[in-house]
Every structure is written in structure tokens, then in C-alpha cells.
């Protein structure tokens, strides 16, 4: 018996070590990491493209792995799938294969040129192919709607109405009912870059310490009295929404999806509020790129083409809730939760006062420190109640240094700049 067992263990060990020898195209992704989503990718999205090893990696580990492979000069990864901001440092170090031929082909089959241009990351050649897109919206429990202030349309809120709404809910329920993902892994920095600053100042970097910005921060402080203090621990707003800790929340659609898909009848999903300069919003783009020296470049290109086909893009939307980068119509039999989210995205894009805020370009590996400027300002102004003007001046200096160090030019909604984007 003992012999059989040890033989079995030996055999399985040999098998376990032997199996990776099969030629597989290694596809490393920072997106679609949860096991349910990864399974969809492996079993449905990549079903017909041959042997693909779909590996998921947390963003920090992804950066470390790519850098390690670059320094070692030995690539194991043929294809990477990651966010715009995560691919930017790779393009900065000139480690991505140019994909202009693929880009041309996709432009012909209906991928918007504006989206493809984002994939150049400020360079002259195509660095990544836009794979999926998402954005941020607000979600509310239906019972919260009764507290909406008179005359407010949930699909066209402004900040004063949101504050009044928060006040009504707090008075009725006894506790703050608005939540933001300001926890350690939350995406609060994106709220400032894509929503708060564009809405109040019409810019992101140039207007960082303007009078408009100072007025905006005062407004945010007023709003924050009706925001639950637990917000600084929230990473994904779907959890406090589903648990009934908050009634109204702002977050990335993928971080709201579970709560809304589980009970689509309980929620309304709508655009973020507008400020004096319009309704800021930020599209999020995940892209596919091939590292230089990839062991299977041809296989990787085949996967990119497969994932960019209209059928695959629609399947991705209905299975994981990321929207197509091709201009295709979403099918009517979409998951009810995803349909609600898609409705809010359309409402945002179609709103008359929309101000689109693009993802930062040219920051290289300083994206994290760029986020930190906004989060530090938030911590000091809103949480620690420091004087707005002093904080903006100090953080503005940090921002200006970051821009000169990286030489990043302005991106929308800031007006174009010749050199590094100035902080005015």
C-alpha cells in the first residue's frame, strides 16, 4: 500500500512538472482576476484560439514581473492585458511591440480612432490595442429616491442637489447614507481626476490650485458631512450597498456590478453629479499589448484579433460587465444588472453638459504618485480640516514637480501644452 502511494505521489509530481512543457501562449492580465471572471475568460472567451495560459496578476506584482523579465532579458509572457495606466510605464521604458498593423485593421472594422489614439500612450506608434472599457457611475437603492430634493432629476443631478439629498437621507434615517470608495484599495483618486476636478474647474492639472478648485473643495466638505465616515475603509462599493450600510454610492461599474446584478430591481444607476463646469466623467480603458521579445508573438496577435471580434466583445460585456471598444450595439438579452449599468453609461455620455476626462498620458511609473497628490489633498482638506488654500498650494507644488519630472504634456480636459503640463 505504502509503495503504491509513494509511486502515485511520484507520478503526479512528474506529471505536474511535465505538463507546462506544452507550448502555450502566456497571457498575463491584471483585469478579470476574480475566479468567476477568469473562468469565463479561460472557458468561453479564449475557447477557440488554441492553447492559451491565462494568468492573472495583481497590478503591483504585474509591474514587478514585467520589470524583472525586462531586466533578465528573458520573456515568458507573450501577451499582457492591463489598464491604460498600468501599460504606460511599460511603454515608457520602450518595452512594448508596436501594433500599428493591427490598429489599422481594427480601425477599419469599427474601433473609434479616439480610443485607438489612447493606445499610443503619447508615442508615435500603437502601444496597445483597446480591449474593454468601463467608467464610473452612481448607484442608489430605490428607497433612497423618496428623499430626493424637489425638482431633482436623478439622471441630471448637480452637487447642490446631491448635498440636499444626503441631508434628507441623514435626517430621515439618522445616519449618513452616501458612500465613496476612499479605502486603501478604493478608486477615490479617479473620482478627483475624472469627476470632481473636471466638474468644478474644467481641468485636472492646470486648474489644480485655482479659485474654482478651492470652491469645489468647500463644496466637497459640505457634501462630506452626509458621507459615512466608514468611506475611508471602503474599497468596493458593492459590499456596503448590498449590506445596507449606504444607500447611495459612486464607484467603478465593475465594483458595483455584484450588488446590482444580484438584485437589479432594488437599484437605480445614474451619472455622477455636475458641477459649475459640467458633468465630468472618465472612461477607463483596458488594453492588450505584446512585450518586446515575447516568445509567441504570432499567437499573441491571434488572441488580440480574437478578443477584438464583435462576438467576443459582446460576450465579454454580457459575462463580465466590461463594455466593447468596438462600436457595436449591446444585445437586448443582457444581464439585468449590466443593462442598468450600461444605461447609466449611455446617460452620462449623452448628457448635454458632459466633460470627458481622459486617462493620464505620459506619467510613466509616476501614476501612483499622481494619485497620491489628490488623495493627500483630500486627506488634509476633508478629513483633517486643514485650510484649503494652504493645502492646494503645497500639493500644487508637488504636482508641478511631478509634471516637470515626467515631462507629461496636458491631456483632456486640460488645454494642450507645449512642454510639461503647467499647474497654473
Amino acid at each position, binding site marked *: 500500500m505504502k509503495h503504491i502511494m509513494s509511486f502515485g505521489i511520484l507520478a503526479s509530481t512528474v506529471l505536474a512538472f511535465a505538463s507546462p512543457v506544452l507550448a502555450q501562449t502566456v497571457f498575463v492580465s491584471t483585469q478579470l482576476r476574480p475566479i468567476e471572471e477568469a473562468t469565463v475568460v479561460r472557458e468561453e472567451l479564449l475557447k477557440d484560439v488554441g492553447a492559451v495560459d491565462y494568468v492573472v496578476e495583481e497590478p503591483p506584482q504585474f509591474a514587478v514581473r514585467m520589470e524583472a523579465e525586462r531586466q533578465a532579458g528573458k520573456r515568458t509572457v507573450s501577451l499582457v492585458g492591463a489598464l491604460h495606466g498600468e501599460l504606460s510605464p511599460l511603454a515608457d521604458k520602450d518595452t512594448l511591440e508596436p501594433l500599428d498593423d493591427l490598429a489599422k485593421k481594427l480601425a477599419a472594422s469599427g474601433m473609434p480612432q479616439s480610443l485607438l489614439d489612447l493606445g499610443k500612450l503619447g508615442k508615435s506608434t500603437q502601444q496597445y490595442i483597446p480591449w474593454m472599457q468601463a467608467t464610473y457611475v452612481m448607484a442608489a437603492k430605490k428607497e433612497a429616491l423618496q428623499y430626493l430634493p424637489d425638482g431633482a432629476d436623478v439622471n441630471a443631478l448637480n452637487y447642490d442637489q446631491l448635498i440636499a439629498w444626503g441631508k434628507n437621507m441623514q435626517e430621515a434615517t439618522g445616519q449618513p447614507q452616501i458612500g465613496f470608495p476612499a479605502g486603501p484599495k478604493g478608486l477615490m483618486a479617479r473620482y478627483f481626476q475624472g469627476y470632481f476636478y473636471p466638474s468644478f474647474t474644467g481641468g485636472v492639472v492646470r486648474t489644480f490650485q485655482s479659485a474654482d478648485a478651492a470652491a469645489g473643495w468647500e463644496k466637497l466638505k459640505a457634501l462630506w458631512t452626509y458621507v459615512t465616515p466608514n468611506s*475611508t*475603509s471602503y474599497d468596493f462599493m458593492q459590499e456596503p450597498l448590498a449590506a445596507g450600510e449606504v444607500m447611495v454610492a459612486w464607484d467603478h461599474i465593475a465594483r458595483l456590478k455584484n450588488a446590482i446584478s444580484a438584485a437589479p430591481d432594488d437599484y437605480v444607476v445614474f451619472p455622477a453629479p455636475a458641477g459649475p463646469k459640467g458633468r465630468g466623467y472618465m472612461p477607463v480603458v483596458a488594453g492588450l499589448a505584446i512585450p518586446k521579445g515575447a516568445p509567441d508573438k504570432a499567437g499573441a496577435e491571434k488572441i488580440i484579433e480574437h478578443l477584438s471580434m464583435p462576438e467576443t466583445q459582446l460576450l465579454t460585456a454580457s459575462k463580465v460587465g466590461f463594455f466593447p471598444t468596438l462600436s457595436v450595439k449591446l444585445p437586448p438579452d443582457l444581464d439585468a444588472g449590466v443593462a442598468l449599468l450600461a444605461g447609466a453609461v449611455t446617460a452620462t455620455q449623452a448628457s448635454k453638459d458632459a466633460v470627458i476626462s481622459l486617462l493620464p498620458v505620459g506619467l510613466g511609473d509616476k501614476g501612483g504618485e499622481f494619485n497620491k497628490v489628490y488623495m493627500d489633498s483630500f486627506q488634509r482638506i476633508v478629513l483633517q480640516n486643514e485650510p484649503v488654500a494652504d493645502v492646494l498650494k503645497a500639493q500644487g507644488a508637488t504636482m508641478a514637480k511631478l509634471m516637470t519630472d515626467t515631462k507629461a504634456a496636458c491631456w483632456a480636459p486640460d488645454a494642450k501644452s507645449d512642454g510639461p503640463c503647467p499647474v497654473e
Partner: protein
Amino acid sequence: MTNSRPWIPYLLILPSVAFLALLFVVPLVQTIWLAVSDNGAPSLANAERMVTDINFTRSVKNTFLLTIAVVPVQIAIALAMGTMVAKVGRGRETILWIWTIPLGISDLAAGLVWLSILQNTGYLNSLLFGLGIIGRQASWLSYQTPVALFIAIAVAEIWRGTAIVMVIIVAGLNQVPKEFKEAAEIFGAGPWTRFWRITLPLIRPALQSALILRTVLAFEVFAVVYALGGRNFPVLVGEAYNWQNQNQNYSVAAAYAVLIMIISLAATLIYLKALKVDPERLP
């Protein structure tokens, strides 16, 4: 036999020395260089960046406060537990086994256990609500309740880290010869005198090890704080983690790592000096 082949002991310890040199000393040197260089040239820019960061002073203060609050309590509880269990005859093993359960739990899991108790929808609030003490969910872990947050983290740390102190102290207590106590009893020393005059001096080596170990670990506290406090309670290791992972600035993260190492080394030296152990007494 050993005399004829004096190289044998060296050969036997070679693998462990090589292993540590490769996986400890090399990264240590690299980390120090990363911390004190900027673009390949020696520079204090990273240290300056670290010191001027908004969370630096808070994280130093929090780390020290937590250490000062947690370590003495843990030593006192562990001494009490060790002394009590010494009197127990039957079932001693079982009691020790139960007391050491937190040792087998990872830091992060311990943090999550306490999070499930203390979060808004947690067990504590359910209990208080059930007893009619609170009318609605109360927050214990938010930035608006810093005292409750500090106590929560300290309690979780004490719960998690006392077992290791107790194990060391029980081992020390076991080595105290019975004869000393019996002699003291004959001379009429009460329990307190026996504890202060006999037990405590005799377990000094164990106490020293426990203090060094616990203090160094307290300066490195991270997972429990991260689970319970997140952004609301910055500590040194947490800041190193943020600079490495979120801000992707490995140099400032390295500066934090070096600072933590210096603090830990200083604490160890202070204990070695303050609780000087007579070499004759070493087991």
C-alpha cells in the same frame, strides 16, 4: 575525531550561512542602496521625501504608541498566564494548547476576525443592539473615532501576539529550580516576595528574549492594522507597503524599510543593555 577534521563544523553550517547571505544580506544591501541613492548617485532625497510626507509623523507616532501600549500588557498577561498554569496539574497541556491557538493564525486572518467583530455590521454592534445599548450601528473603526480604533487595534494585537510571549515565559518558568521556592517558603517569604525576588530574576533570559521578539514584531505590525484601520491608522510598515505598491516608488519604500530596521536594532540593543543577563545564568 573532530580534531583531525576541524573543517567539518564549517562545512555543516555552510549551507545555512550561504542561504542567509544570498537571500538576506544581498537584498539588505540592495535595499539600503535603494534607500540612499537617487538615479545611481548617493542622495538623501528619498529620506527627505519620506520625512516630509503627510503620513510620516502620524505613522511614527502610531507605531510607537501601539508598541508602548501593547508590549507591556502582553508581558504582564503572559507572566500571569504562565504563573497560573504552573499551579495546574491535570489538563495543563490542554490549557496551554488552547492558549496558543492564536499562534497558528496568520496576522491578516486575525485582523479579519476582529474586523468581523468590530465593523458596522459586526458581532459587537449586533450584541450591543440586541441588549438595547445602542439604537443603531455605531462605528468603531472610522477616522472620526480614533480612540476606539486605537483600542480595537491594540486589543487585536494583544489577542494575537500574547501567545508567543507566553510560550517563551512558560519555558523560562519551567527552568526555575523548585528548591529555591521551597527554601524561600521555609524562610517565610510570601507569594509576592517569591515572585519578585526569585521567579522574575531567574526568568530574566526568557524575559529578554520575549521582549526583544515582541518589540521588534510590534514595530513591524502591519496586517492587523491594515485590516482594521486601513487608511485611518498609518503605521511604518503600512507606509512602506503603500509607497511600494500604490505609489510604485520603490526608493521611498526602501527608506521606510531601513528606518524600521534601525528602530528594531536600536530597541534590541536597549533591551540587551537594560536587561543584562549574567553569562553564567544562560541555560
